[in-house]
Protein backbone atom coordinates (compact mmCIF):
# COMPACT_ATOMS: atom_id res chain seq x y z
CA UNK A 1 0.00 0.00 0.00
CA UNK A 2 1.33 3.47 -0.86
CA UNK A 3 1.82 5.78 2.04
CA UNK A 4 0.73 9.36 1.37
CA UNK A 5 3.00 11.85 3.10
CA UNK A 6 2.56 15.51 3.93
CA UNK A 7 4.63 16.50 0.89
CA UNK A 8 2.39 14.47 -1.45
CA UNK A 9 -0.69 16.22 -0.10
CA UNK A 10 1.00 19.62 -0.47
CA UNK A 11 1.57 18.91 -4.16
CA UNK A 12 -2.10 17.96 -4.57
CA UNK A 13 -3.10 21.11 -2.67
CA UNK A 14 -1.54 23.20 -5.45
CA UNK A 15 -4.66 22.25 -7.47
CA UNK A 16 -6.73 24.24 -4.97
CA UNK A 17 -4.45 27.22 -5.57
CA UNK A 18 -5.00 26.68 -9.27
CA UNK A 19 -8.79 26.96 -8.72
CA UNK A 20 -8.27 30.11 -6.70
CA UNK A 21 -6.15 31.62 -9.50
CA UNK A 22 -8.84 30.84 -12.09
CA UNK A 23 -11.35 32.52 -9.82
CA UNK A 24 -9.22 35.66 -9.47
CA UNK A 25 -8.36 35.92 -13.16
CA UNK A 26 -11.92 35.34 -14.39
CA UNK A 27 -13.54 37.34 -11.59
CA UNK A 28 -15.61 34.38 -10.38
CA UNK A 29 -15.43 35.74 -6.81
CA UNK A 30 -15.09 32.19 -5.58
CA UNK A 31 -11.46 32.14 -4.37
CA UNK A 32 -12.34 32.87 -0.76
CA UNK A 33 -14.98 30.12 -0.78
CA UNK A 34 -12.69 27.60 -2.48
CA UNK A 35 -9.87 28.21 -0.02
CA UNK A 36 -12.19 28.22 2.96
CA UNK A 37 -13.93 25.00 1.89
CA UNK A 38 -10.59 23.29 1.27
CA UNK A 39 -9.26 24.37 4.66
CA UNK A 40 -12.46 23.17 6.36
CA UNK A 41 -12.26 19.84 4.56
CA UNK A 42 -8.65 19.29 5.67
CA UNK A 43 -9.35 20.17 9.31
CA UNK A 44 -12.60 18.16 9.47
CA UNK A 45 -11.05 15.06 7.94
CA UNK A 46 -7.89 15.22 10.10
CA UNK A 47 -10.08 15.56 13.18
CA UNK A 48 -12.32 12.67 12.22
CA UNK A 49 -9.20 10.61 11.46
CA UNK A 50 -7.92 11.24 14.97
CA UNK A 51 -11.31 10.53 16.53
CA UNK A 52 -11.71 7.29 14.58
CA UNK A 53 -8.20 6.11 15.42
CA UNK A 54 -9.00 6.78 19.08
CA UNK A 55 -12.42 5.09 19.00
CA UNK A 56 -11.04 2.07 17.11
CA UNK A 57 -8.30 1.70 19.72
CA UNK A 58 -10.76 2.00 22.60
CA UNK A 59 -12.87 -0.86 21.31
CA UNK A 60 -15.67 0.26 23.64
CA UNK A 61 -19.28 -0.26 22.49
CA UNK A 62 -20.33 2.87 24.40
CA UNK A 63 -17.84 5.06 22.51
CA UNK A 64 -18.94 3.56 19.18
CA UNK A 65 -22.59 4.15 20.05
CA UNK A 66 -21.83 7.75 21.03
CA UNK A 67 -20.17 8.43 17.67
CA UNK A 68 -23.09 6.82 15.82
CA UNK A 69 -25.65 8.89 17.75
CA UNK A 70 -23.71 12.09 17.05
CA UNK A 71 -23.54 11.30 13.36
CA UNK A 72 -27.29 10.62 13.22
CA UNK A 73 -28.04 13.85 15.07
CA UNK A 74 -25.90 15.89 12.69
CA UNK A 75 -27.56 14.25 9.68
CA UNK A 76 -31.03 14.79 11.17
CA UNK A 77 -30.29 18.50 11.58
CA UNK A 78 -29.43 18.69 7.88
CA UNK A 79 -32.62 16.87 6.88
CA UNK A 80 -34.75 19.16 9.04
CA UNK A 81 -33.13 22.35 7.72
CA UNK A 82 -32.50 21.58 4.05
CA UNK A 83 -36.00 21.50 2.49
CA UNK A 84 -37.55 24.87 1.58
CA UNK A 85 -40.30 24.24 4.14
CA UNK A 86 -40.16 22.40 7.41
CA UNK A 87 -42.19 21.66 10.52
CA UNK A 88 -42.21 24.30 13.24
CA UNK A 89 -40.38 23.68 16.49
CA UNK A 90 -38.86 20.35 17.45
CA UNK A 91 -41.27 18.29 15.35
CA UNK A 92 -39.08 18.61 12.26
CA UNK A 93 -35.98 17.39 14.07
CA UNK A 94 -37.86 14.46 15.61
CA UNK A 95 -39.27 13.45 12.26
CA UNK A 96 -35.83 13.61 10.64
CA UNK A 97 -34.13 11.71 13.49
CA UNK A 98 -36.75 8.98 13.44
CA UNK A 99 -36.71 8.46 9.69
CA UNK A 100 -32.98 8.52 9.04
CA UNK A 101 -32.03 7.00 12.40
CA UNK A 102 -34.30 3.98 11.96
CA UNK A 103 -33.44 3.43 8.31
CA UNK A 104 -29.67 3.75 8.72
CA UNK A 105 -29.48 1.63 11.87
CA UNK A 106 -31.68 -1.08 10.36
CA UNK A 107 -29.59 -1.39 7.19
CA UNK A 108 -26.26 -1.28 9.02
CA UNK A 109 -27.42 -3.89 11.55
CA UNK A 110 -28.49 -6.13 8.69
CA UNK A 111 -25.04 -5.79 7.10
CA UNK A 112 -23.16 -6.35 10.35
CA UNK A 113 -25.20 -9.30 11.59
CA UNK A 114 -25.77 -11.23 8.39
CA UNK A 115 -23.20 -10.28 5.76
CA UNK A 116 -19.99 -8.93 7.25
CA UNK A 117 -20.25 -10.43 10.75
CA UNK A 118 -17.09 -8.96 12.28
CA UNK A 119 -16.23 -10.05 15.85
CA UNK A 120 -17.57 -8.49 17.91
CA UNK A 121 -20.43 -7.51 15.60
CA UNK A 122 -20.34 -3.90 16.86
CA UNK A 123 -16.63 -3.53 15.98
CA UNK A 124 -16.12 0.22 15.44
CA UNK A 125 -13.92 -0.28 12.35
CA UNK A 126 -16.99 -1.68 10.53
CA UNK A 127 -19.93 -0.01 12.23
CA UNK A 128 -18.82 3.62 11.98
CA UNK A 129 -17.76 3.79 8.30
CA UNK A 130 -20.90 1.85 7.33
CA UNK A 131 -23.27 4.13 9.22
CA UNK A 132 -21.41 7.10 7.71
CA UNK A 133 -21.91 6.11 4.11
CA UNK A 134 -25.49 4.95 4.69
CA UNK A 135 -26.35 8.21 6.48
CA UNK A 136 -24.98 10.28 3.59
CA UNK A 137 -27.45 8.53 1.31
CA UNK A 138 -30.53 8.32 3.50
CA UNK A 139 -30.06 11.99 4.31
CA UNK A 140 -30.26 12.74 0.62
CA UNK A 141 -33.38 10.63 0.00
CA UNK A 142 -35.20 11.86 3.09
CA UNK A 143 -34.56 15.54 2.35
CA UNK A 144 -35.50 15.17 -1.32
CA UNK A 145 -38.69 13.36 -0.33
CA UNK A 146 -39.56 15.94 2.31
CA UNK A 147 -38.77 18.88 0.04
CA UNK A 148 -41.08 17.50 -2.64
CA UNK A 149 -43.79 16.71 -0.11
CA UNK A 150 -43.80 20.04 1.74
CA UNK A 151 -43.63 22.15 -1.45
CA UNK A 152 -46.35 19.98 -2.94
CA UNK A 153 -48.63 20.44 0.06
CA UNK A 154 -48.12 24.22 -0.07
CA UNK A 155 -48.75 24.43 -3.83
CA UNK A 156 -51.56 21.90 -4.11
CA UNK A 157 -53.47 22.99 -1.02
CA UNK A 158 -56.72 23.67 -2.89
CA UNK A 159 -56.53 20.35 -4.76
CA UNK A 160 -55.93 18.45 -1.53
CA UNK A 161 -58.72 20.27 0.30
CA UNK A 162 -60.99 19.64 -2.68
CA UNK A 163 -60.64 15.94 -1.94
CA UNK A 164 -61.10 16.38 1.78
CA UNK A 165 -64.32 18.41 1.46
CA UNK A 166 -65.82 15.63 -0.63
CA UNK A 167 -65.23 13.11 2.14
CA UNK A 168 -61.77 11.76 1.34
CA UNK A 169 -59.53 10.62 4.21
CA UNK A 170 -56.17 12.34 4.67
CA UNK A 171 -54.51 9.21 3.32
CA UNK A 172 -56.61 9.33 0.13
CA UNK A 173 -56.12 13.06 -0.30
CA UNK A 174 -52.35 12.98 0.15
CA UNK A 175 -51.47 9.65 -1.50
CA UNK A 176 -50.66 10.99 -5.00
CA UNK A 177 -48.31 13.57 -3.53
CA UNK A 178 -46.78 11.02 -1.15
CA UNK A 179 -46.07 8.71 -4.08
CA UNK A 180 -44.38 11.51 -6.02
CA UNK A 181 -42.29 12.47 -3.01
CA UNK A 182 -41.06 8.95 -2.22
CA UNK A 183 -40.24 8.47 -5.90
CA UNK A 184 -38.15 11.67 -5.87
CA UNK A 185 -36.24 10.35 -2.88
CA UNK A 186 -35.36 7.12 -4.67
CA UNK A 187 -34.17 8.59 -7.96
CA UNK A 188 -30.58 9.40 -6.84
CA UNK A 189 -29.80 5.85 -5.70
CA UNK A 190 -31.31 4.41 -8.87
CA UNK A 191 -29.12 6.75 -10.93
CA UNK A 192 -26.12 5.81 -8.82
CA UNK A 193 -26.69 2.09 -9.37
CA UNK A 194 -27.25 2.45 -13.13
CA UNK A 195 -24.18 4.66 -13.56
CA UNK A 196 -21.89 2.58 -11.35
CA UNK A 197 -19.01 1.07 -13.27
CA UNK A 198 -19.94 2.58 -16.63
CA UNK A 199 -20.07 6.32 -16.08
CA UNK A 200 -18.53 6.50 -12.61
CA UNK A 201 -16.26 4.37 -10.50
CA UNK A 202 -17.83 4.68 -7.06
CA UNK A 203 -15.67 6.55 -4.55
CA UNK A 204 -15.34 3.76 -2.03
CA UNK A 205 -14.27 1.25 -4.63
CA UNK A 206 -11.76 3.68 -6.12
CA UNK A 207 -10.32 4.34 -2.68
CA UNK A 208 -9.93 0.62 -1.97
CA UNK A 209 -8.30 -0.08 -5.32
CA UNK A 210 -5.91 2.84 -4.81
CA UNK A 211 -5.15 1.50 -1.33
CA UNK A 212 -4.08 -1.77 -2.92
CA UNK A 213 -7.15 -4.04 -2.72
CA UNK A 214 -7.88 -6.54 -5.47
CA UNK A 215 -10.47 -4.97 -7.85
CA UNK A 216 -12.85 -7.94 -7.55
CA UNK A 217 -12.84 -7.70 -3.76
CA UNK A 218 -13.39 -3.95 -4.00
CA UNK A 219 -16.29 -4.58 -6.39
CA UNK A 220 -17.91 -7.04 -4.00
CA UNK A 221 -17.82 -4.48 -1.21
CA UNK A 222 -19.22 -1.85 -3.54
CA UNK A 223 -22.12 -4.09 -4.59
CA UNK A 224 -22.93 -4.80 -0.97
CA UNK A 225 -22.84 -1.07 -0.21
CA UNK A 226 -25.12 -0.21 -3.13
CA UNK A 227 -27.71 -2.71 -1.87
CA UNK A 228 -27.49 -1.24 1.61
CA UNK A 229 -27.83 2.29 0.26
CA UNK A 230 -30.81 1.35 -1.91
CA UNK A 231 -32.59 -0.27 1.03
CA UNK A 232 -31.77 2.61 3.36
CA UNK A 233 -32.93 5.21 0.82
CA UNK A 234 -36.25 3.49 0.28
CA UNK A 235 -36.84 3.13 3.99
CA UNK A 236 -35.88 6.69 4.89
CA UNK A 237 -37.83 8.38 2.10
CA UNK A 238 -40.94 6.30 2.86
CA UNK A 239 -40.73 6.85 6.61
CA UNK A 240 -40.01 10.56 6.27
CA UNK A 241 -42.90 11.18 3.85
CA UNK A 242 -45.41 9.10 5.88
CA UNK A 243 -44.43 10.91 9.08
CA UNK A 244 -44.62 14.26 7.28
CA UNK A 245 -48.10 13.41 5.98
CA UNK A 246 -49.18 12.63 9.56
CA UNK A 247 -47.61 15.84 10.81
CA UNK A 248 -49.35 18.24 8.42
CA UNK A 249 -52.78 16.72 9.09
CA UNK A 250 -54.74 15.98 12.26
CA UNK A 251 -57.02 13.22 13.54
CA UNK A 252 -60.05 15.01 12.03
CA UNK A 253 -58.39 14.72 8.60
CA UNK A 254 -57.72 18.45 8.28
CA UNK A 255 -54.75 19.98 6.51
CA UNK A 256 -52.78 21.93 9.14
CA UNK A 257 -50.42 24.06 7.09
CA UNK A 258 -49.83 26.42 10.02
CA UNK A 259 -47.52 23.71 11.34
CA UNK A 260 -45.14 24.40 8.45
CA UNK A 261 -42.67 27.22 8.24
CA UNK A 262 -40.33 28.58 5.60
CA UNK A 263 -36.81 27.46 6.40
Amino acid at each position, binding site marked *: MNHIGALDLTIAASLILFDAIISTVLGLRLHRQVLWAAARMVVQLLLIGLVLRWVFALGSPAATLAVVVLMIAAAAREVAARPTHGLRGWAGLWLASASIGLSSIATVLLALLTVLHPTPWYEARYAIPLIGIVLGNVLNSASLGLDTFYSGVMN*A*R*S*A*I*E*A*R*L*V*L*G*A*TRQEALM*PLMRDSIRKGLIPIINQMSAAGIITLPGIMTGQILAGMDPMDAVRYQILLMFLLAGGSGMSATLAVYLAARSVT*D*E*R*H*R*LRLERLQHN
Partner: protein
Amino acid sequence: MAARLQVDQLRSALAGPFTFSLNAGECLAISGPSGSGKSLLLRMLCDLDPSSGSIALDGAPRTGINAPAWRGKVVYQPAEAGWWDPTPATHFKPEQMERVRTLLPRLGLSADKLDTEVRLLSTGERQRMALLRSLACQPQVLLLDEPTAALDPESTAAVEQLLQELMAAGLSLVLVTHSEAQAQLLGTCRMRMENRQLHDWKAA
Protein backbone atom coordinates in the same frame (compact mmCIF):
# COMPACT_ATOMS: atom_id res chain seq x y z
CA MET B 1 -87.76 16.56 15.97
CA ALA B 2 -84.08 17.54 15.72
CA ALA B 3 -83.10 20.19 13.20
CA ARG B 4 -81.13 19.12 10.14
CA LEU B 5 -78.20 21.26 11.30
CA GLN B 6 -77.95 22.61 14.85
CA VAL B 7 -75.01 24.94 15.52
CA ASP B 8 -74.27 26.11 19.08
CA GLN B 9 -71.48 28.50 20.10
CA LEU B 10 -69.29 27.33 17.25
CA ARG B 11 -66.08 29.32 17.35
CA SER B 12 -62.42 29.32 16.42
CA ALA B 13 -59.57 31.65 17.24
CA LEU B 14 -60.53 33.64 14.14
CA ALA B 15 -64.33 33.78 14.11
CA GLY B 16 -67.54 33.22 16.04
CA PRO B 17 -69.26 32.31 18.21
CA PHE B 18 -71.98 31.23 15.78
CA THR B 19 -75.38 29.88 16.80
CA PHE B 20 -78.17 28.96 14.41
CA SER B 21 -80.27 26.05 13.30
CA LEU B 22 -81.44 24.92 9.91
CA ASN B 23 -84.23 22.47 9.03
CA ALA B 24 -84.35 20.08 6.11
CA GLY B 25 -85.13 21.93 2.90
CA GLU B 26 -84.21 25.32 4.33
CA CYS B 27 -81.60 27.74 3.07
CA LEU B 28 -79.65 30.13 5.27
CA ALA B 29 -78.45 32.96 3.03
CA ILE B 30 -75.49 34.87 4.41
CA SER B 31 -74.23 38.15 3.03
CA GLY B 32 -71.59 40.55 4.21
CA PRO B 33 -68.41 42.27 3.09
CA SER B 34 -65.35 40.35 1.85
CA GLY B 35 -63.12 39.22 4.68
CA SER B 36 -65.94 39.33 7.23
CA GLY B 37 -65.62 35.62 7.98
CA LYS B 38 -68.20 33.98 5.70
CA SER B 39 -65.79 31.42 4.26
CA LEU B 40 -64.32 30.80 7.71
CA LEU B 41 -67.79 29.85 8.95
CA LEU B 42 -68.29 27.40 6.07
CA ARG B 43 -64.85 25.84 6.70
CA MET B 44 -65.71 25.41 10.38
CA LEU B 45 -69.10 23.87 9.57
CA CYS B 46 -67.54 21.15 7.40
CA ASP B 47 -64.76 20.66 9.98
CA LEU B 48 -61.96 21.74 7.64
CA ASP B 49 -60.80 24.27 10.25
CA PRO B 50 -60.64 23.37 13.95
CA SER B 51 -63.43 24.82 16.08
CA SER B 52 -64.99 24.47 19.51
CA GLY B 53 -68.66 24.49 20.42
CA SER B 54 -71.20 21.97 19.26
CA ILE B 55 -72.78 21.08 15.98
CA ALA B 56 -75.18 18.27 15.17
CA LEU B 57 -76.69 16.77 12.05
CA ASP B 58 -80.22 15.40 12.50
CA GLY B 59 -79.51 15.33 16.23
CA ALA B 60 -76.25 13.39 15.93
CA PRO B 61 -73.30 15.38 17.34
CA ARG B 62 -70.31 15.83 15.06
CA THR B 63 -67.91 14.50 17.68
CA GLY B 64 -69.47 11.05 17.24
CA ILE B 65 -69.02 10.99 13.47
CA ASN B 66 -65.64 10.54 11.79
CA ALA B 67 -64.52 13.57 9.82
CA PRO B 68 -64.60 12.15 6.26
CA ALA B 69 -68.13 10.81 6.84
CA TRP B 70 -69.21 14.20 8.21
CA ARG B 71 -67.78 16.02 5.19
CA GLY B 72 -69.54 13.59 2.87
CA LYS B 73 -72.87 14.72 4.39
CA VAL B 74 -72.07 18.38 5.01
CA VAL B 75 -70.32 19.22 1.74
CA TYR B 76 -68.43 22.50 1.38
CA GLN B 77 -67.89 24.06 -2.00
CA PRO B 78 -65.31 26.86 -1.92
CA ALA B 79 -65.60 29.88 -4.22
CA GLU B 80 -62.73 28.51 -6.28
CA ALA B 81 -62.81 24.74 -6.11
CA GLY B 82 -59.61 22.78 -6.55
CA TRP B 83 -59.06 19.98 -9.08
CA TRP B 84 -56.62 17.13 -8.62
CA ASP B 85 -56.76 15.43 -12.03
CA PRO B 86 -56.46 16.88 -15.55
CA THR B 87 -60.08 16.21 -16.61
CA PRO B 88 -63.34 16.49 -14.59
CA ALA B 89 -64.42 12.89 -15.36
CA THR B 90 -61.89 11.28 -12.99
CA HIS B 91 -63.10 13.47 -10.11
CA PHE B 92 -66.25 11.38 -9.89
CA LYS B 93 -66.69 7.89 -8.50
CA PRO B 94 -68.09 5.31 -10.96
CA GLU B 95 -71.32 4.95 -8.94
CA GLN B 96 -71.88 8.72 -9.20
CA MET B 97 -71.80 8.81 -12.99
CA GLU B 98 -75.49 8.09 -13.53
CA ARG B 99 -76.54 11.06 -11.42
CA VAL B 100 -73.82 13.19 -13.02
CA ARG B 101 -75.11 12.44 -16.53
CA THR B 102 -78.67 13.42 -15.61
CA LEU B 103 -77.55 16.64 -13.90
CA LEU B 104 -75.08 17.81 -16.62
CA PRO B 105 -77.73 19.14 -19.05
CA ARG B 106 -79.60 20.77 -16.14
CA LEU B 107 -76.55 22.98 -15.62
CA GLY B 108 -76.12 23.69 -19.33
CA LEU B 109 -73.03 21.49 -19.64
CA SER B 110 -72.57 19.04 -22.52
CA ALA B 111 -71.30 15.53 -21.74
CA ASP B 112 -68.00 16.10 -23.60
CA LYS B 113 -67.03 18.70 -20.97
CA LEU B 114 -66.33 15.77 -18.65
CA ASP B 115 -63.34 14.85 -20.77
CA THR B 116 -62.16 18.38 -21.50
CA GLU B 117 -59.10 19.41 -19.53
CA VAL B 118 -60.09 21.45 -16.49
CA ARG B 119 -57.72 24.27 -17.43
CA LEU B 120 -59.47 24.60 -20.81
CA LEU B 121 -62.92 25.02 -19.24
CA SER B 122 -64.18 28.56 -18.68
CA THR B 123 -64.39 29.83 -15.11
CA GLY B 124 -68.17 29.48 -15.27
CA GLU B 125 -67.98 25.93 -16.60
CA ARG B 126 -65.54 25.01 -13.83
CA GLN B 127 -67.87 26.48 -11.24
CA ARG B 128 -70.86 24.52 -12.51
CA MET B 129 -68.73 21.36 -12.75
CA ALA B 130 -67.69 21.90 -9.12
CA LEU B 131 -71.36 22.19 -8.09
CA LEU B 132 -72.04 18.96 -9.92
CA ARG B 133 -69.14 17.33 -8.07
CA SER B 134 -70.54 18.46 -4.73
CA LEU B 135 -74.07 17.31 -5.59
CA ALA B 136 -72.76 13.92 -6.76
CA CYS B 137 -71.94 13.19 -3.08
CA GLN B 138 -75.67 13.50 -2.29
CA PRO B 139 -75.08 15.78 0.69
CA GLN B 140 -77.66 16.52 3.33
CA VAL B 141 -76.32 20.02 3.84
CA LEU B 142 -74.53 21.90 1.09
CA LEU B 143 -72.29 24.83 2.03
CA LEU B 144 -71.97 27.08 -1.02
CA ASP B 145 -69.52 29.95 -1.27
CA GLU B 146 -70.57 32.31 -4.08
CA PRO B 147 -71.75 29.45 -6.33
CA THR B 148 -72.83 31.69 -9.21
CA ALA B 149 -70.21 34.44 -9.04
CA ALA B 150 -68.70 33.54 -12.42
CA LEU B 151 -71.96 32.69 -14.22
CA ASP B 152 -74.01 34.49 -16.85
CA PRO B 153 -77.69 35.21 -15.98
CA GLU B 154 -78.92 32.16 -17.89
CA SER B 155 -76.61 29.71 -16.09
CA THR B 156 -77.32 31.43 -12.77
CA ALA B 157 -81.04 30.86 -13.30
CA ALA B 158 -80.38 27.20 -14.15
CA VAL B 159 -78.35 26.72 -10.96
CA GLU B 160 -80.97 28.47 -8.82
CA GLN B 161 -83.76 26.40 -10.38
CA LEU B 162 -81.89 23.16 -9.66
CA LEU B 163 -81.09 24.19 -6.07
CA GLN B 164 -84.76 25.01 -5.45
CA GLU B 165 -85.80 21.56 -6.66
CA LEU B 166 -83.22 19.87 -4.45
CA MET B 167 -84.38 21.94 -1.47
CA ALA B 168 -87.93 20.82 -2.12
CA ALA B 169 -86.56 17.26 -1.92
CA GLY B 170 -84.99 18.00 1.48
CA LEU B 171 -81.51 19.43 0.80
CA SER B 172 -80.47 22.17 3.24
CA LEU B 173 -78.23 25.02 2.10
CA VAL B 174 -75.92 27.49 3.74
CA LEU B 175 -75.45 29.98 0.94
CA VAL B 176 -72.88 32.76 0.96
CA THR B 177 -73.82 35.23 -1.74
CA HIS B 178 -73.28 38.84 -2.72
CA SER B 179 -76.40 38.75 -4.88
CA GLU B 180 -79.40 40.31 -3.18
CA ALA B 181 -81.75 38.73 -5.75
CA GLN B 182 -80.31 35.27 -5.09
CA ALA B 183 -80.52 35.67 -1.31
CA GLN B 184 -84.19 36.67 -1.64
CA LEU B 185 -84.98 33.89 -4.09
CA LEU B 186 -83.32 30.98 -2.23
CA GLY B 187 -83.02 32.14 1.37
CA THR B 188 -85.63 30.86 3.80
CA CYS B 189 -83.79 32.83 6.46
CA ARG B 190 -81.11 35.45 6.09
CA MET B 191 -78.21 36.63 8.17
CA ARG B 192 -75.46 39.16 7.82
CA MET B 193 -71.78 38.54 8.61
CA GLU B 194 -69.84 41.45 10.02
CA ASN B 195 -66.50 41.41 11.84
CA ARG B 196 -66.60 37.60 12.02
CA GLN B 197 -69.98 37.60 13.82
CA LEU B 198 -73.40 36.63 12.48
CA HIS B 199 -76.21 39.15 12.91
CA ASP B 200 -79.93 38.93 12.22
CA TRP B 201 -80.81 40.35 8.86
CA LYS B 202 -83.52 42.68 10.28
CA ALA B 203 -81.07 44.41 12.60
CA ALA B 204 -79.26 45.88 9.55
